[in-house]
């Protein structure tokens, strides 16, 4: 598997808070990688390392096989970035932003940029500070897309946006990966969107990596079984992440090979009543032991 980025044993501490705790993961080339976690989980910190905005305290970060801190001109020029706070100078007008960015990116496609500007209906003369939240996100997205980056990195791209702009975001993600060899990483707490477009997912909670696997694997290897037991289910049931009881029936959220788990439950004296694929939300909660805290909608 070709990777576009590799993070190894990355740790970052701020005084008493551990923002990233020994994170290791690889971003396969050509995938849509969903980084899922709540507020303060460490998503933005992780992304900033990829963008060369933070120097690792411990561990290594590689993008396109290079160090984004020491080789920014080679790495960043092939990346597109949309930060969570959209970080764009308010005084700049839309067409000025486009001209400004064009100077940075040799691959900037002015026709494509213009196409995007029209699609987003952004007034070229409007100052960025006069744009609505959604329009600002679109301006940022334009800046991230127009040079057709090999690696598109979006930090909470949909947060606080209306459904129309959200569609633009999802559409941009899909268009990017549909072009061979290009990769997208986006962080989100909106699991519906992650479900739609991600083919790889990492879940992060309080700086720790809970889960990191292809989407397909995550879905086939998590099962919600409903079963009856004589009394309570055994504590040592392998793969058990979470259990709950209602009306004498036990709901078991398990992680592992489905057939093996099924047999295991029966062997431990359980009578299987139902078997379902849990939602991504359920899977997150089962691993984290806590709900995914939503950022403001």
């Amino acid at each position, binding site marked *: 598997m070709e990777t576009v980025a590799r993070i190894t044993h990355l740790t970052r501490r701020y005084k008493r808070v551990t923002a990233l705790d020994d994170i290791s993961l690889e971003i396969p080339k050509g995938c849509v990688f969903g980084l899922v976690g709540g507020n303060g989980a460490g998503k933005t910190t992780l992304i900033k390392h990829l963008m060369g905005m933070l120097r690792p305290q411990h561990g290594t970060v590689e993008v396109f096989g290079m160090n984004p801190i020491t080789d920014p001109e080679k790495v960043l020029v092939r990346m597109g970035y949309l930060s969570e706070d959209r970080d764009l100078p308010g005084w700049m007008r839309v067409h000025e932003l486009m001209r400004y960015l064009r100077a940075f990116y040799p691959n900037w496609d002015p026709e494509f940029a213009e196409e995007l500007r029209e699609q987003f209906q952004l007034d070229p003369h409007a100052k960025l500070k006069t744009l609505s939240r959604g329009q600002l996100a679109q301006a940022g997205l334009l800046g991230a897309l127009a040079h057709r980056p090999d690696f598109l990195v979006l930090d909470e791209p949909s947060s606080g946006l209306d459904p129309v702009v959200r569609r633009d975001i*999802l559409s941009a993600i899909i268009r990017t990966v549909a072009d061979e060899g290009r990769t997208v990483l986006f962080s989100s707490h909106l699991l519906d969107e992650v479900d739609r477009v991600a083919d790889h997912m990492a879940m992060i909670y309080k700086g720790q990596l809970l889960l990191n696997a292809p989407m397909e694997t995550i879905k086939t290897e998590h099962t919600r079984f409903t079963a009856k037991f004589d009394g309570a289910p055994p504590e040592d049931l392998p793969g058990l992440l979470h259990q709950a009881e209602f009306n004498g029936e036990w709901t078991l959220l398990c992680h592992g090979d489905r057939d093996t788990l099924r047999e295991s439950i029966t062997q431990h004296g359980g009578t299987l009543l139902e078997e379902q694929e849990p939602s991504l939300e359920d899977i997150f909660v089962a691993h984290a032991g806590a709900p995914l805290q939503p950022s403001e909608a």
Partner: protein
Amino acid sequence: MQLHITPGDGAPIYRQIIDQVKNLVAAGRLKPGDEMPTIRALAQQLLINPNTVARAYRDLESQGVLLSRQGSGTVVADGGSPLAPGERKRLLTKQVDKLLTEAQHLGFDEETVIELIKKRNKKRSGEDIS
């Protein structure tokens, strides 16, 4: 051609696509030879990962519902394929089971259900109902 998908707690997205395409074919709304949207176009339309569409198309192909032609996209397969009648019956059986479950919940017996089917069918073909 309008397909809809519901992400989240329903059936996996690729399976929703498969079921809908099969339904459209069985209903005659997709006819043999009709061109399917490209994987990329459908992914854009539904706002889902192209791999998911690719997977659905692959499964539909292996089930004889779609046919992928070298360099000229994917089309609906010839309805004369031996799988098609079996597939159609399977889909109908699913609906019948749903109907029977519903009837049972509502407390109707088999005779009443059959009567109702006949009545509604008459209405559909424009005949008089007493």
